C-alpha cells in the first residue's frame, strides 16, 4: 500500500524509523518493505507487487521488529515512528529459509526444463536464502489433467498463456492483478488449502487485453506464454529500452533481441509510473511480432504491365523520379499529395513535410487517414480541444474522472488502468458517458449511455443542469444560457435519452470536484460533428472552470499524433508552426491546403495525380472505403511505403519496404507532449528503410538534400517542438446550433467501427499472437439486439448500410445494452469500412440473420 498511498499522503505527515541501523524518514503509511527499499535494502518477496494491495501471503518478506516477538511481514506492516527493524537477523534468515523450504516441497526441482529458468524469483531466492538440500521425503503433489495434458503437465489456458500448476507457488499475483488492476475475471484460484489451483474460469480462457502481464508478473514458471517459451534462454538475449508504437501514451517497453539472428524475442514492461505503471496491453506486448514477420515487404516493387515486380531501390527511385517529375513539371506540385502515419517518428514526419513543402511545393499532406471528412481549418474547436495539455499521472490525483465519447479499452489502455487505480486506490469517482455501454465503465460510479449522435446535447445538458441548480457562477451562466437554450433541459433529455437526474449528477460531480480529469476520446474525434461537440466542451470548460482545477482534452490516439501536430503535418498547421516553418525554410507553399478528405476528392477529379502514402493504409482505414478506393484508383502515380502488402500497396505503382520502429532510433511525442525515444533493437530487416531515409532519397532524386546532416535535421525539429502548441480556447461562449436528427428506419442500428481490443490499426493482424486472440471481423451486439434479429453467438449476420454489405458472425456482448453494432476495422479479410459514409454523423445499418 505504501506505493499506493504515497502521492496522497506525501504532503501530510512523515515518520522516522530505523532499519538495519539506518534511520529513514518516510511518508506515514509507508510499509516497512518500501521504507527499506528507499535506503537500498531489498527485502526478498514473492507476493508483493508495487501496484497491488499487499496480501501477506507468501511470508517471504519477514522482518524482525523490536518489541514484537513474532516475525512480521514487511510488505503488510506499516512503518511507524521509532520502529526499529532488522531485515537480516538470525531469526529473519531462519524464517525465510523455512518459507523457501515450504515453497519448494511441492515445487518440481527441474529448473533446467523450465522456461523461467534464469529469471525466476524462486530460483534466485533459493540460491540466496534457502537450504541446499531437501528434508521432504514424500512425492510432490502433481496436477495432472489427462485430456488437456501437454508437455510437463502444461495446460493452455488462453490463446497465449500456458499454465503449469505444479510450478505455481500461489502468490496470487496473477489473480489479484487481473481483478484489481485490470478489472478482468478470466483467471482465478480454485479449491482451497494445498489443493488450491490457479486456472481459467471454467469453460473459458484467459484472453483479456492485459493477459500478457500475468505471465510477466508470475514469479515462477507457472505462467508462460507461447510467444516466448522455449524459444531462447533469457541470458542469450540482450535488452533494449524502447517504447510502444501502438499506443498514444508511449508505453515504456524493453525489447529482448538476439543479434546473430537479428530477431526480437519479446517485449516486456519497463515500468514508468508516470505512464504505464509497468502494465502492458497485449497489443503492446505482442504487437512487436510484426517486426519479425516473414510476410514483410522485402524489396521495393514496381508495377510492370499491371503487375508488381521486385526491384532494386535504385530502380524504384528512378521510377518515382520520372513520374513525380513529370507530374510536377506538367501539372505542378499541387497535384502531388501525401498521407503519413502518425505512428512514425519525428524525423520521418518532419522529412515528409519538408519534402512536400519545399521540394514538391505542395501543401497536400495529412497524417489523419482514419478521420472522416475533416474540414481544413487551423483552429477549429476540435483542433483546440486536441491541443490541450494532459498528464497521465494526474489521473491518479483526480477525485473526479469523466470519460466522454471514448471506448477506453479500444483506445487508451494506460489511461484506463490509471483510472482504475485512481478509483481502487485513491477513492476517485469515475463517470462514463458514452453513446454505448463500454467495458471500462465497470469502475464508474455511474455509466450514462446517450443516444448516438447527441454528444454535444449531452454537454449542453450538463451545462444547463448546472445553471438550473445554481452550481456555477451566475454571470457566466447568464451569458451561456441563451447560446444553448434552443432546447430546454427536458427536451435534451428526450433527445439524448439521459435523465435530468443524470445531467444533474454530472454537473454536481464536475462542480464539486477538487481535481478533475475529463477525457474525450475517439468517438468524438471521429465524429463528423467533432467541432460542434468540442465547441460545447469549450463552453463546459469555461462554465465550470474545468481546466482551472484539472484537465480536459481530446486524447490523441497514435504513437506520435502529438508530434505530427507539433511538426505541422496537417495541411493546415497551427499558425505559429506555419510561421516557424517559413522561418526555417525561408519558404512555405502558398497553395491551398488539402487534407485527406479533399485530397481523395481531388483524386477523383484528377487534380491530384501523384500520391505517396507512408505507413498508412487509407484503403482500409478511411471511414468510407468506397470513397477512398474511388479516389486512390484514379491516381496516376501512387507510391506506397509500408511494412506489409496492404489494400493500399496493392494499388501502388511503386511499393517501398518500410522499417519498423524497432529497427532505428526515433523520437515520439506521446499524448501528454512528452518526447520519448524508441531505441533501435535490430538492424533493418531485408531491404527496409526508415521513412526519413526514404524521403531523403526521394529528395535526392531532384538533386537536393532535405538536410545537411542529422544534426541540422534535429535542430529544425527541436525548434518546432519548442513552440507552445496549446491553442487557446475561444474567449466567449459558443452558440451550439441544433439540427434535428434524421433517422432512417430502413437502417435503424447505429454502427461504430473501431479497433478490436487486441488490435490497433492495420498492422497488428500480422502478429500471430494477437491473431490468436482475435483473427477476423465480427459484429458485436447486445443480447437484446441479437434476440431481435434472432441470432445466437457466432451465427452469421448480414450487415447492410446504404453503401455496403458484409456478412460477419455475431458476437454477443456482456456489456452492450442498447441497439448498436460494433465492428472492428483491423482485418484485411473483411473490408468493414465499406459500410461507412464519410459525411454521415452516425452511420447506421440494417442487421439480418443469414439463413443457412
Amino acid at each position, binding site marked *: 500500500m505504501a506505493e499506493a498511498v504515497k502521492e496522497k499522503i506525501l504532503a501530510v505527515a512523515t515518520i522516522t524509523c530505523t532499519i538495519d541501523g539506518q534511520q529513514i524518514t518516510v511518508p506515514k503509511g509507508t510499509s516497512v518493505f518500501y521504507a527499506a527499499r528507499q535506503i537500498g535494502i531489498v527485502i526478498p518477496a514473492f507476493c508483493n507487487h508495487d501496484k497491488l494491495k499487499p496480501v*501477506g*501471503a507468501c511470508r517471504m518478506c519477514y522482518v524482525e521488529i523490536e518489541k514484537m516477538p513474532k516475525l512480521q511481514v514487511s510488505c503488510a506492516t506499516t512503518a511507524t515512528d521509532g520502529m526499529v527493524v532488522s531485515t537480516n537477523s538470525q531469526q529473519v534468515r531462519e524464517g525465510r529459509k523455512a518459507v523457501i523450504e*515450504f515453497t519448494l*516441497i511441492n515445487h518440481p526441482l527441474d529448473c533446467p526444463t523450465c522456461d523461467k529458468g534464469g529469471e525466476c524469483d524462486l530460483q534466485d531466492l533459493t540460491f540466496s536464502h534457502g537450504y541446499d538440500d531437501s528434508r521432504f521425503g514424500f512425492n510432490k503433489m502433481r496436477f495432472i489433467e489427462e485430456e488437456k495434458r501437454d508437455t510437463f503437465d502444461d495446460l493452455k489456458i488462453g490463446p497465449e498463456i500456458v499454465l503449469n500448476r505444479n510450478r505455481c507457488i500461489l502468490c496470487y499475483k496473477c489473480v489479484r492483478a487481473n481483478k484489481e488492476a485490470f478489472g478482468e475475471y478470466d483467471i482465478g484460484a480454485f479449491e482451497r*488449502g494445498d489443493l488450491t489451483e490457479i486456472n481459467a474460469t471454467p469453460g473459458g480462457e484467459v484472453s483479456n487485453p492485459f493477459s500478457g502481464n500475468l505471465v510477466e508478473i508470475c514469479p515462477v514458471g507457472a505462467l508462460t506464454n507461447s510467444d516466448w517459451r522455449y524459444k531462447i534462454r533469457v541470458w542469450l538475449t540482450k535488452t533494449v529500452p524502447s517504447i510502444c508504437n501502438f499506443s498514444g501514451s508511449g508505453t515504456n517497453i524493453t525489447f529482448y533481441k538476439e543479434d546473430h539472428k537479428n530477431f526480437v524475442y519479446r517485449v516486456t514492461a519497463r515500468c514508468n509510473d508516470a505512464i504505464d505503471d509497468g502494465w502492458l496491453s497485449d497489443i503492446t506486448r505482442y504487437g512487436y511480432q510484426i517486426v519479425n514477420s516473414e510476410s514483410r515487404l522485402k524489396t521495393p516493387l514496381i508495377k510492370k504491365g499491371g503487375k508488381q515486380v521486385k526491384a532494386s531501390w535504385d530502380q524504384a527511385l528512378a521510377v518515382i523520379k520520372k513520374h513525380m517529375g513529370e507530374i510536377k513539371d506538367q501539372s505542378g506540385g499541387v497535384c502531388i499529395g501525401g498521407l503519413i502515419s502518425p505512428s512514425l517518428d519525428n524525423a520521418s514526419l518532419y522529412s515528409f513535410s519538408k519534402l512536400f513543402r519545399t521540394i514538391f511545393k505542395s501543401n497536400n499532406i495529412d497524417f489523419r487517414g482514419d478521420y472522416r471528412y475533416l474540414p481544413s481549418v487551423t483552429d477549429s474547436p476540435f483542433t483546440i480541444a486536441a491541443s490541450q495539455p494532459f498528464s497521465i499521472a494526474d489521473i491518479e490525483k483526480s477525485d473526479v474522472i469523466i470519460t466522454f465519447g471514448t471506448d477506453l479499452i479500444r483506445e487508451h489502455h494506460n489511461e484506463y488502468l490509471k483510472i482504475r487505480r485512481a478509483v481502487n486506490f485513491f477513492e476517485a469517482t469515475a463517470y462514463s458517458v458514452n453513446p454505448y455501454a463500454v467495458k471500462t465503465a465497470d469502475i464508474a460510479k455511474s455509466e450514462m449511455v446517450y443516444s448516438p449522435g447527441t454528444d454535444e446535447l449531452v454537454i449542453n445538458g450538463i451545462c444547463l443542469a448546472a445553471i438550473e441548480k445554481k452550481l456555477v457562477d451566475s454571470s457566466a451562466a447568464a451569458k451561456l444560457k441563451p447560446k444553448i437554450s434552443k432546447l430546454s433541459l427536458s427536451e435534451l433529455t428526450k433527445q439524448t435519452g439521459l435523465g435530468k437526474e443524470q445531467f444533474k449528477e454530472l454537473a454536481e460531480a464536475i462542480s464539486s470536484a477538487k481535481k478533475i480529469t475529463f477525457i474525450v476520446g475517439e468517438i468524438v474525434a471521429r465524429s463528423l460533428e467533432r467541432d460542434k461537440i468540442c465547441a460545447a466542451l469549450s463552453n463546459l470548460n469555461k462554465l465550470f472552470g474545468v481546466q482551472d482545477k484539472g484537465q480536459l482534452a481530446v486524447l490523441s490516439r497514435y504513437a506520435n499524433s502529438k508530434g505530427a501536430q507539433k511538426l505541422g503535418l496537417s495541411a493546415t498547421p497551427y499558425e505559429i508552426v506555419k510561421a516557424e516553418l517559413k522561418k526555417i525554410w525561408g519558404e512555405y507553399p502558398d497553395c491551398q491546403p488539402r487534407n485527406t478528405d479533399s485530397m481523395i476528392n481531388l483524386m477523383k477529379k484528377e487534380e491530384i495525380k501523384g500520391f505517396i502514402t507512408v505507413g498508412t493504409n487509407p484503403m482500409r482505414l478511411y471511414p468510407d472505403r468506397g470513397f477512398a478506393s474511388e479516389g486512390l484508383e484514379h491516381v496516376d502515380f501512387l507510391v506506397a511505403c509500408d511494412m506489409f502488402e496492404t489494400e493500399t500497396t496493392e494499388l501502388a505503382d511503386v511499393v517501398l519496404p518500410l522499417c519498423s520502429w524497432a529497427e532505428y532510433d526515433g523520437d515520439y511525442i506521446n499524448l501528454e507532449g512528452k518526447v520519448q525515444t524508441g531505441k533501435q533493437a535490430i538492424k533493418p530487416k531485408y531491404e527496409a528503410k526508415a521513412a526519413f531515409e526514404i524521403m531523403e532519397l526521394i529528395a535526392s532524386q531532384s538533386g537536393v538534400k532535405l538536410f545537411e546532416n542529422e544534426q541540422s535535421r534535429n535542430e529544425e525539429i527541436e525548434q518546432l517542438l519548442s513552440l507552445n502548441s496549446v491553442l487557446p480556447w475561444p474567449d466567449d461562449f459558443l452558440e451550439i446550433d441544433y439540427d434535428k436528427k434524421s433517422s432512417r428506419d430502413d437502417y435503424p442500428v447505429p454502427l461504430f467501427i473501431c479497433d478490436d481490443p487486441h488490435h490497433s490499426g492495420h498492422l497488428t493482424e500480422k502478429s500471430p499472437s494477437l491473431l490468436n486472440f482475435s483473427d477476423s471481423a465480427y459484429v458485436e451486439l447486445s443480447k437484446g439486439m441479437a434476440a431481435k434479429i434472432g441470432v445466437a453467438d457466432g451465427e452469421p449476420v448480414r450487415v447492410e448500410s446504404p453503401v455496403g454489405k458484409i456478412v460477419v458472425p455475431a458476437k454477443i456482448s456482456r456489456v452492450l445494452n442498447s441497439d448498436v453494432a460494433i465492428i472492428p476495422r483491423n482485418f484485411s479479410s473483411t473490408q468493414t469500412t465499406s459500410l461507412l459514409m464519410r459525411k454521415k454523423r452516425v452511420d447506421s445499418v440494417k442487421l439480418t440473420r443469414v439463413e443457412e
Partner: protein
Amino acid sequence: MTFYSPVVTNAKEIAGHEKLHLFEYVEDEKQYQLKRYLEHGGYAAWKTVLGKMKPEEVIEEVKKSGLRGRGGAGFPTGMKWSFVPKDSPKVRYLLCNADESEPGTCKDRVLMERDPHVVIEGMAIGAYAIGCHLMFCYIRGEFHHSIERIEKAMEEAYSKGHLGKNIYGSGYDLEMIVHTGAGAYMCGEETGLINSIEGEKGMARIRPPFPAIEGLWECPTIVNNVESLAAVPHIINRGADWYRSMGTEKSAGTKLFSLSGHINRPGNYEVELGFSLQKLIYDANYGNGISDGKKLKAVIPGGVSTPFLTPDKVDVPLDYESLTEAGSMLGSGGVIVLHEDTCIVWTILKLIKFFRHESCGKCTPCREGTGWLEQIIQKIEDGRGGPDDLEKLDSICGNILGRTICPLGDAAVMPIQSTLKHWRDEWQYHIEHKKCLVNQNFGF
C-alpha cells in the same frame, strides 16, 4: 422430545439459580417461540437499551461486566465494540459468528436451536452499541435446524416490531440477515467470515486493518460469538456488577463447556468461569467420570486448537488465565476427554488431517506445512516412521507457529507440540515399534 438435539445440558440443575442464566430455559420446549421468550422477560433488555441508554452507555456497561469473547480468543467484548470509530461516516456491521466448527464444540447450536431470541436480542443490543443498522448472523450451513430456528425467530421479531424500522418508536432502524456458510472451518475465523459474506472464498485477511476499523465491505465491523452476544441481554437486565460477581477477577461471568469424548455424561454445561475442570469431568452432575471406568490420559480443554493437558494438570480452574498458566487455552470451551487407551499419534493424525483440510491456502507455512506434517504423522501412524521424524515435526511446527496470517496455523501446531512435549515417549515408541503403545479399539 421436541428438541432437535438430544444433547444433555445442566438446565434443570440450574433452574432458578440466581447466577447461571444462559441455559436457564434451554430445557423449555417452547422457549424458541417469541411468546414464551417474552414470558421469560425476553426483549426487556433491548427495550431498556433503546429507551434509556446511549450507545456509549451500553458499551460502558458491557466493558464493566468483564465479558470476554466466547469464540476462542477471549477478547473483552465491550473493548472491542469501543474500537469502532465514533466519527466514521461509513455504515457499521455487526456479525454474529455462529459458524461453530471448532471440533469438540457444540454449545452455540444449543442456544440457537432452543433459545434463538436471546441470540437475536444480544445481536441487536451489540448493533445498537456500535451504531449498526444491518446485522448478519453467519450460521454454518450444516446447521439446518439452527438456521430454521433463527430465521423463524427473526421473522417473529420483525413481525412484532423487535426488529425493523423505528423499533419501539425509538427511531432506531435495524435489519437482520441470516447468512449461511457452506462447509469451511475458516469461515469461523473473523476475517474469513467477513470474506465469506462478501462472496469471497473464506480466506483470512491480513490485520491491520482490524475489522473494527475496516471489515465487511471496508466498513467498521464487529464479529462476536453467539455465546458472547447471548450474555449481553442478561448483563443489561441485571447489571454489570451482577455479571462481575460471577467467575474470577479477570474471567467474569459464566461459560458454556461442551464436554465430549471418553466421558460418562457428555453434554453442554454452563458453569461460572473458574469452575474446576476436575469437577466438570468427574462430578456426577457433570461428566460423571471417565467412560468404562478407564483412566484419564489427556484433556483437550478448549477445542482442538488448544494444547493437550496431562492428567496432573486437570485440577485447574476453567478460566482464561489459569488455563494459559497450565500450558493450554480456554479456547471455545470444547473439553475433549481422552482415556488411557487412546493413541496420541492417532489422535494427532485426526487433528492434523482436519487442519490440512481446512487450511484456506493463502499463506505458505500453513498451506504447505499442514500437508507436510500430515504426511509425516501418517507415516508414523502407519509404522513407517523414521528416527529423525520427531525432530522434523518439532522444526516444522516451529516454522509455522507465529508465522501465519491467521491463527489457524498456530492452532494446527500447538496441539502437536504439546503432545511432542508431554508424550514424546509414546511418539518414540510408535516409531520404534511401528505400532501404538496402547491397545486402542474404539468399537461401535
